[in-house]
């Protein structure tokens, strides 16, 4: 492997690519949150408590970014109106 192939190793060690979201952690989960939009109060508790930051309320709709959701189940556990159910992830 020659130096030209080192993928632009910087002259001194630093990383500008501070983007953790290059690894799509959605592949980790075995259960996924299923949202009942009708029951959802848009209270935002799931948005606050998600360790991954994948829950977002946009135009009064709760969206989950399933590319990164690890299926921990905190959102379902904390939802005051039981609008979220954890279901088995399909293969």
């Amino acid at each position, binding site marked *: 492997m020659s130096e030209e192939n080192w993928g632009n190793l910087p002259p001194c060690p630093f990383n500008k*690519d501070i*983007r953790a979201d290059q690894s799509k952690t959605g592949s980790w989960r075995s259960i996924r949150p299923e949202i009942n939009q009708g029951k959802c109060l848009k209270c935002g508790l799931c948005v606050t408590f998600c*360790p991954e930051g994948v829950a*977002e309320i946009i135009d009064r709709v709760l969206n989950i970014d399933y590319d990164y959701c690890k299926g921990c189940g905190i959102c379902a556990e904390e939802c005051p109106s039981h609008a979220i159910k954890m279901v088995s992830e399909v293969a």
Partner: protein
Amino acid sequence: MSINAEDIRLRGHRCCAGCAGAIAERLIFNTVGKKAILFGSGVCVGMSSGMANLPKLTLHFSGNGGAGAAGIAAGLEVTGRGDIPVIAMGGDGAVSDISIGQVSACAQRNDNILFFCMDNEAYMNTGVQYSTLTPFGSVTTTTPRGSVEWKKDLPLLVAFHHVPYVATVSPAYPQDLVRKVKKALSIRGYRYIHVLAPCPTGWGYDPAKSIKVAKAAVTTGLFPLYEIEQGKLKFTVEVKEQTPVKNYLELQKRFRLVKDKEVNFIANHIRERLNQLEELSKITI
């Protein structure tokens, strides 16, 4: 309250599913914003880079007590950028054990840093080994029969360095946490925030229960939420009805070896410590 799509803390980090430390860090970084410099790493999350889109310098655990952050603060001061906040983070292993000397010295020198101890109550990233912040009765790989020592009271220890601000926070109380981070950011000098970070992997509970565990720690009186500003201690979350500690212990596999009579032992300890804090709140530290 909700955190919006401009989340500083990026998805795809390598913390376990349900990591409450990650929840706390999201709240912290979204409050801190983009104009800050990060030093060190707290909770296992620090071992994966890309935690937050901030300029970052990390040393090893032995350097995470804040010394490097003090250096950054000094460097910013002499180059006329002293208005940029320096955020330092360390896990309980780094902060309470290997680098405790640095915590003490930075506090005594009143170095201008905001320091977070991300306390998951053991050396989690290396596979759950005992630390001096591991609570009584915990099973870890180095205490397979359950630990027999009490957890250190690190926030009080720091408070007795007479620093401008000390606080305890739990991710189950996000408004309290955010308010304290905002307050700390508005103060100059050494500020210390102790964050309880429940760990489903190491504490042994279903990841979905992370917030319930983080809440129970507070309602049992084991982890009271307070702040000490200029030496004046004030409880910030009033626990109207204290819950029995047995409920908290039963939630977690790490306490499976705690005998019934030891539960009373723990309950007494909680009572004593809360009394201590009550008495301290009447004077200036």
